[in-house]
Structure formats: structure tokens, C-alpha cells
């Protein structure tokens, strides 16, 4: 099953997506964990998280974005423009970062998608921002309902909320298997699972996980010299994690947005569904885009590191990533101060020629921490 997943986690338009479309399903792309996917789910739409899987060709994207822009975004844009993403029925933009905004804007400029909506996410968590974000969610809900002719009643949203919570619970179980003394799966495998799920409807992903959790319960991944945690920017590069692990450092947990940041501590309180989602998503956005929340993010990382008993942290980000680039400078100091060795891995997204360099740095890091 794991091997099957890994194959699936390298395709943009998976068999699942193709079938879903054939049966008349609609697929809407989004890119950032700040997007409340419950809204799409409630409308019967497949929320597809935009990925590039290390796609190295950025040429089409480069005619819109510059080489000073993040290569992940340029890769995604290229795939958007070369037709790979033609199965999408729409896109939801969020202002995750300057590069992502650029990606969405140029994508929509160059290739008008039938549905496009910009969901504006505040950069801090405060009552006034929460009220604005609640309204943003309501407006999005209206626009989606209008375009796709889906009723999107409260009850449907609440059902989607329950489904998401069920998913979050399964993912936490999956991570518990990862964090075992003798882990049941590798970091590359865990990322494959999450990437696979990010191209599926929630309920189907939940059943997939149910099967997987059963299969994995007795599994043991052995022969590693160190337990590592992976932090940093949006990473859908399964190969990168595999490269790290090949050097002998098993990635037993993470604080990635294709990882624990997307499901760990996500709850809301309100009884109004839009407000509930606003609380859930804005209140638990462990991303350096959020202003004045550094201490909270640091604590989140420390908690994850402690429960997984890691020997060191690999902090990875793509060249030109402003948010994680600055954050890395602060985190490195603060984590090392607390006795956790950190390797800052600034790298080019999806570049095969960077592999050797990544491996050397990881190996030297393991040698440095005496593993």
C-alpha cells in the first residue's frame, strides 16, 4: 500500500481525480493551509491543494514571475500554464505570501479559470481581524454557492467540519505511529500520504487512512542513526525527505504546512459556522506570515520536537522565501539555545542538481551531532 501511495504522490492528476471528474465532480485548487476546505467539501467539490512535486521546469512560469521569485510558485505556475492543471474548475487565492499571490495573479491573468476567488486572510489574530475573516468566509461561501449552484447550508458545513475533525484525528494517529520509538513509517512515506490526501475528498482520505493505520500498526522502520524533525516552508518534495533519510536521519515528525501544521491544533468555538471556521483557521495558523506570533510558533515546534524525542531539526526553505528565510535566522538561534541542534537547509525547489549538496549537509549535520 505504501508503494502504491508513493506512486500516487508523484502525480498531479491522479487516477482518483480523473475518476472524480468523470463522474461529474468539480475540482477547485487552493494553495495555502489558511483555506477552510470545509466550504469546498460542503459544496461537494474536491479541494485540490496545488502541488508541483519537485517539477523542475519553470520556463512557462518564468515568463511571468522572475527568477527572484520562489521556485515552488514558478513550478506550480508552469504546470498551470502548460495544461497539467486543466482539470481544475477553479482556483481560490489566498494571500499566503508575496510569491503565492504572484503565482495566483499571473495564473489567472494568463489563463482565465471559470471560477476564481480571492480569500483575504488577515495577518494577525485579534477580534477585528477575526470579524473580517468571518465575513470573508461568508462572502466566499456565497460566491461558491452562486457559481457552482450548491446550496451550502449550515448543516452541510457542519458535516464537513465533522469530517475534517475525523481526518485530523486520523492524521494525529498516523503521526503517533511515526513518533514511536521504532517508527512504523518514514518521513518520506508520511509526506506521500499527506500529499495523496491533498488531492482527495476528505471522506475518502479518511477511509484510506483507516486502512493504512491498520496495515502499519505492526510495521517497523529500523536502521536509522538519528531522529529528525523537519520544519520550514511548503514542501511537497517527497524525494527531498527521502534524500535526508537516506543519510541515516529518520524524519519522525514535522512542523510543515504539508504536515502537522495543517491538522494538529485546529479547533474553533463559535456556533456560527463561518465564525467557527475563521477561529479554526486564523487562530491556528502556525505560519511565519502571522505577525507577532513568533513565540507561539516556537512553542508549537518545541512541543512537537519534545513529543517525538528528536535529536536534531532540519529547517528547510526555498531560496527567496522571505517569510521562512527570516524566521529561520531566529529559530536557529532559539532552538540551539534550548539544546536542539539545527541544520538550516536553504535550497532550490525541485532541483535535482541540488541533491548532492543536500545530502552532504545532512550527513555532516549527523556527524556534527555525533550520530
Amino acid at each position, binding site marked *: 500500500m505504501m508503494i502504491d501511495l508513493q506512486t500516487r504522490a508523484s502525480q498531479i492528476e491522479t487516477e482518483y481525480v480523473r475518476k472524480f471528474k468523470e463522474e461529474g465532480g468539480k475540482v477547485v485548487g487552493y494553495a495555502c493551509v489558511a483555506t477552510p476546505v470545509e466550504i469546498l467539501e460542503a459544496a461537494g467539490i474536491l479541494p485540490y491543494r496545488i502541488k508541483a512535486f519537485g517539477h523542475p521546469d519553470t520556463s512557462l512560469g518564468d515568463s511571468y514571475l*522572475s527568477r527572484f521569485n520562489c521556485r515552488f510558485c514558478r513550478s506550480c505556475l508552469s504546470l498551470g500554464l502548460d495544461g497539467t492543471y486543466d482539470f481544475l474548475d477553479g482556483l481560490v487565492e489566498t494571500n499566503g505570501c*508575496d510569491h503565492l499571490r*504572484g503565482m495566483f*495573479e*499571473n495564473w489567472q491573468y494568463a489563463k482565465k479559470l471559470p471560477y476564481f476567488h480571492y480569500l483575504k486572510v488577515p495577518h494577525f489574530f485579534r477580534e477585528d481581524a477575526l470579524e473580517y475573516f468571518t465575513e470573508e468566509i461568508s462572502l466566499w461561501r456565497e460566491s461558491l454557492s452562486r457559481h457552482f449552484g450548491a446550496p451550502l447550508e449550515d448543516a452541510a458545513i457542519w458535516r464537513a467540519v465533522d469530517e475534517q475533525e475525523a481526518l485530523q484525528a486520523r492524521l494525529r494517529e498516523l503521526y503517533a505511529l511515526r513518533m514511536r520509538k521504532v517508527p512504523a513509517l518514514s518521513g518520506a512515506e508520511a509526506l506521500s500520504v499527506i500529499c495523496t490526501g491533498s488531492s482527495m475528498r476528505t471522506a475518502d482520505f479518511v477511509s484510506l487512512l483507516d486502512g493504512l493505520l491498520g496495515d502499519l500498526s505492526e510495521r517497523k522502520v529500523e536502521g536509522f542513526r538519528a531522529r529528525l524533525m523537519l520544519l520550514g516552508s511548503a514542501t511537497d518534495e517527497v524525494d527531498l525527505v527521502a534524500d535526508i533519510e537516506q543519510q541515516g536521519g529518520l524524519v519522525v515528525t514535522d512542523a510543515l504546512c504539508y504536515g502537522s501544521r495543517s491538522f494538529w491544533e485546529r479547533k474553533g468555538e463559535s456556533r456560527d459556522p463561518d465564525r467557527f471556521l475563521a477561529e479554526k483557521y486564523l487562530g491556528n495558523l502556525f505560519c511565519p506570515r502571522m505577525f507577532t506570533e*513568533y513565540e507561539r510558533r516556537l512553542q508549537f515546534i518545541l512541543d512537537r520536537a519534545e513529543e517525538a524525542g528528536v535529536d536534531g531539526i532540519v529547517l528547510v526553505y526555498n*531560496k527567496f522565501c*522571505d517569510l521562512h*528565510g527570516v524566521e529561520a*535566522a531566529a529559530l536557529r538561534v532559539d532552538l540551539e539555545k534550548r539544546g536542539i541542534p539545527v541544520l538550516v537547509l536553504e535550497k532550490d525547489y525541485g532541483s535535482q542538481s541540488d541533491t548532492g549538496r543536500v545530502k552532504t549537509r545532512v550527513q555532516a549535520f549527523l556527524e556534527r551531532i555525533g550520530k
Partner: protein
Amino acid sequence: MAKELTKPLEGLFNRVYDIFSIVDRLPDDMTDAEVEGVLHVLPTDLRRTMSAFLAPRLREASLEFLRLIKRWLEGARRAKEEGKKVVLVPFNFPPEVIYGFEGAWPITSEVLTTLGVAALEGQGERYWDFAMGLGLPDFACSANMIEVGSALTETDFAPDIVLNDCFASCDINSKTHEFLARYLGLPLVFLEKPPDDTPRGIRQYYRYFRAMLSDLEEILGEKLREERIREVLDRANRASEFYWELWDLHKFKPCPVPNAFSLMTYGIRYTMWGQEEAVSAMEKLVKIAKDRLSRKEYPAEREVARAWWTYTSYYFDMPGFFNWMEENGITHLGDGLDLVFPRIIPLDDMDSMVEGMAETARNMPMTRQMGASSMSAQWLEDIIWATRELDADCCIYCGHHSCKQTWSGAAVVRRELLARTGIPTLVLQGDAWIKRMTSMESLQEQIKEFVDNVVAKKREGRRPTRRKPASAAEAPAG
């Protein structure tokens, strides 16, 4: 680690202040021989800058401008001595808001960087290097990193409060200043602009603006007083009137406004707006441009090109940039940072004044364009407006390396501008504040090539069609 490497350090602010203290000693009516004498004793980098500022055609304006900067720096020093709070703001935050408080004085990150680059031997590089030594990324913005790098050395004149309003318009600016505040343990006040220009988005921005004012009031322990804010805004309004007068003067051909005034205008806007010095400095710029207009003076034989710089200019070589262009007949009509859209704020009551300040802040450069619903649409609209107003025949995008948000929209803006107005854009690449990235020589070469080939040809091509009377076939129907 990095500290030992860069010691001994005296910070950027302190060093710039020392240099500016000589400005007061320069007489108003310096002769060329006296200027020569002054330049002779200056270290290389400063000498280059001063040779640009003290060129005969700029001398009078420069002295006024440099004195204004000196007062501004001095104001910060004095504020500190008197126990007031020095607030570090980014360029896209209107300083008059800070002047509204008795107990506060604004210093502006990017202006300090530019001053350091212009005045210090070795420019701002050692502070950049220091910041890099702390592990900050080399794709960060030098406009912030040089000043912030200096503050991080903890040997410089330090702000007491960091205020940032760049979230949603520039990630690297906001993150860098957040890093600084945390590193130095300073209170951080912030103001976000939702990327949303609908009435709802604007309302929300006003709401955030008021919250930001309350935060400032709390930290400063002082309520905004109506009388004081009215005085400050009255002065800002008077400076704004001169701003628009100067804007209109750019419309004449050849342009009577010297290239360097583009820089001086926002130099004034980002530092002393709301103070009397800004009013008189703006007045002086207008007067000089008018005089030049009446004498029909232009530094080159003829005006070859009228260029609008779509975002920033380059600041590491003043004579090589502003003066060189002018001497080659290339008018610098202004750049994106000149688009400050100063408005005359009604001074009726507290509400109208606060709203006026909020609206001013919402329309500051970068906030207005990059913080808009679309990163390219408002920017493009502003460029089209400016180029039409001033009859520009070309645009140049400086392509500052770390300006990812403008790079994100640059391709669309360039294409659309050409399609809608026929105006070509030269796209350069370089760092606007660090000379070691792309040399001025190389930039000049590209500008010259563009002007000679694209702009001159375009002008030539335009002339015959203008002279030729429209034939019946070409005449518009109806």
C-alpha cells in the same frame, strides 16, 4: 560570532548624523571654488554624492534638503535626550501621524539606509554584512537590512518602538522589522492593510488604523490632542499643495524639474511631512523649478527621453544616476515612490482628521499598489495615470533583487502598459542600495541602449504620423 567580525562599529545613524552636522556650516551662496574645496576633503563615497548634490544647478535645493535631513536626525537625537520615544517606521507610513504625538519622533528605515549609502565611506555594506552574519537571508531587502543591520549591532542610536505597516504589501519588510523588534526587545506596533479595495476593505483598514493609534497612545502614554494634530496636518496640507504644484511643473517640456528632485520630494515626504521644514523645502523646490522654467533651462542640449521609473530608482551612485541621466537628456519624471498621493485633509474635527490620516496611509506607495486587491492592477493604473499626466515616453523598472512582490506583477504591468499605451518598459536587474550587485556603468549602458534604440525610434516614428493630416480612410467614423 558576527559581532567580533564587524567590530569596531559605530552605527549607521550615528555616523550619518556626524556627517550631516557639517551641512549647517555650508554657506547658502557657495561658490564653485568653495564647493571644490569642500569636496576635496571628503572621503570618496561621500564626495561622489556631494558632487551630485552640489552641482551648480542643484546647489540651492540641495542645501535646503540636506538641512532638512539634518534637522530630522537632530530631532530624533533631541527627542531621545528629552525622554521622548523614537519610532522606527517604514517609508510607506506617513510620519505626520507620529508628529501628532508630543512624545514621539519618527525615523524611517529606508531613508536611513539611503543616507548611509549616500554618505558613508563603504556605503551601507558593513551593516548588510552584519545582518548576513546573523543568518538573515541574502535575498532580503537591502533597503531595510542596512538600517536594521546597523540597529542589530546594538551600537547604534536605537529606536524605542518599531512600527510596521507592510504586511500585505511586502513580506520581507514586515518580517525584517518584526525580527528587529524581537531581537532588541522593543514594542512592535502594526497596521495591516487588507488587500481589498472594496468599501468593506477600506472600512476595515480604517478600523485597523484606529486600533494602531490606540496602541501608540497606550505605549506613549499620551492621547492624540486635536489641536496638535490639526497644526501638524495643516503643515502637511501646505506641503501637499506644493507637492502638486511641483507635479504639474513636470508636465513642461523640456522638464524644468531636475531629476534629483524626484528623490528629494520623497526624501521630504518620508521624514518631515507635518513639520514646517517640509513646507519650506517643498516651496523651495517649486521655486527653483519655476525659475528654471522661466529661463527655459535644461542640462542637456535637448530632452531625449521622458522616463517614468515604475518602482524605485537606484541610490548607490547619485551623480551616476540622477545627474548622468539628466546630462544625457533623459528626464527622470519620478518613480513609484513619488506616488504618495498627498491629499488635503479636512481639519474640521478629530474624526475627519483621523480618517484623513488613514486615507493618506492607505495611499502611500507600496501600500496602495502592492497591498491592493491585485498586485498588478492598481500599480498599472497608477503608472498609466502618471505617464499620461506627465507625457512619459518610456518606463524603466529597476528590478531591485529582493522586491519579490513587484517582480510578481512586473511582467503583467509591462505587457499591459505596452498594449494599452504603447509605452515600452526597460527591465533592469540590480540592487538599488548595494553597488556591488550590478555596477552603475552596466546600468547606464542598458539605459542608454534602451533610450537610443527603443525610445528614440519610437519618437521618430511618432513624428511623421503627427504631421500627416488624417486621411479620410483613417478618420474616425462619425
